[in-house]
């Protein structure tokens, strides 16, 4: 199950990493495009271009991992869906496992 969840982001090609960053940004609450970009810059030091950001947002929306919220303004907030939260957790756990293994091997090398 976790493997399939992780594949939801893994099959996004060049949008996989931006998608992971976007979902991590949305993990603590809804944000619109500009706020997502700023947040990612702050916590990851990565600047997402507008084309990449909306390419990833559209793909995440189609997969039901995020959803737009009702908004009267031009800017549209997005939030993580329950499925999106599960996929993000699976993906981050897999990364954590890789990181822990790599660090442990470096320490014993």
């Amino acid at each position: 199950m976790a493997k399939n969840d992780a594949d939801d982001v893994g099959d996004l090609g060049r949008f996989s990493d931006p998608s992971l960053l976007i979902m991590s940004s949305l993990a603590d609450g809804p944000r619109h495009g500009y706020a997502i970009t700023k947040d990612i810059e702050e916590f990851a030091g990565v600047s997402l271009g507008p084309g990449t950001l909306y390419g990833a947002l559209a793909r995440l929306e189609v997969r039901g991992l995020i959803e737009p919220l009702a908004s009267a303004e031009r800017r549209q907030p997005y939030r993580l869906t329950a499925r999106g939260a599960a996929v993000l957790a699976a993906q981050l756990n897999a990364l954590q496992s890789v990181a822990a293994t790599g660090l442990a091997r470096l320490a014993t090398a």
Partner: protein
Amino acid sequence: MSGQAPPRPGRLGTAVVKLYPRAWRDRYADEVLDLLAHRPPGPRAAADLLLGALDAHLNITELLRGAATMLAQLRRAALTTLGAWVALCLTVAGLIKVNEDLAYRQAEIAHPLLGGADATAQWACVVAGALVLVGGLPLAVTGLREAWRHDRAALPLFAVPPAAGAVWLGTGLLLGLLGRDAALPQWLGRAAFCGWIALAWVAAAVSVAAVGRLLRRLELAARLLRLATVAGGLVAAAVTVAALSLITYAVELHTAEPALFSGGDGIIATPLPFTLIPLTVIGTAAAVLADRAAWRGIRALPGA
């Protein structure tokens, strides 16, 4: 922030966004332009936008699958609500016709529930009409502009509702003149009147069908369809009030004025129940359809 104009996207960003497919722009352009207004793109971001435009052209079907489903539901909801309102207008017009005689006016004064139901049905129809304008006018204006720019073959469809209305009104005027100037046999006069009523329903159906074609054919901004859906929810509420008023009117007339209820004031002098009951059934069906469409439309809204 107060007193300051909102930031605007630069020319470069606006120009590059125009390179995206139209369907994509309808869904995301507002958001991207807002982002670019806060952060004008440098060469790197402009290149990223260009790559994004290429990606959108190559993968438009995948990118808009979710949005397309939502928009299709909003279109269906808007059209059904419009159709229900039109049907209700014709129904209420029928009620106005059958209770136009003085005896009904006097009965409505004597029985406030009867008068209140009649007035409420008419006012609910008017309020629903105003809400249809609120939700539909921006769509009509944008649709007209879209058709003029990108799909001129769709322009004749805009003329269908006014043309259908004009044909119906013109036929009514013609029949009125004929009836006044020529002594038509009674059966012919009644047949012409029934035909004119049938023509009203045909004109309404053709008009709604034309609007449906336009809604499916033109790319309309999601925010306008969302506005129409919210207005449609209020239209459905007004249509429901009107339908309940029709039912109340029929029941109260039956209870308070049984002689009027069973009299011969129905269409072409038939017993009134033969007209009043179908009108009530049609009004109720319109309300059920409008409520169901509004519920589905509102559920399809983002965040609902």
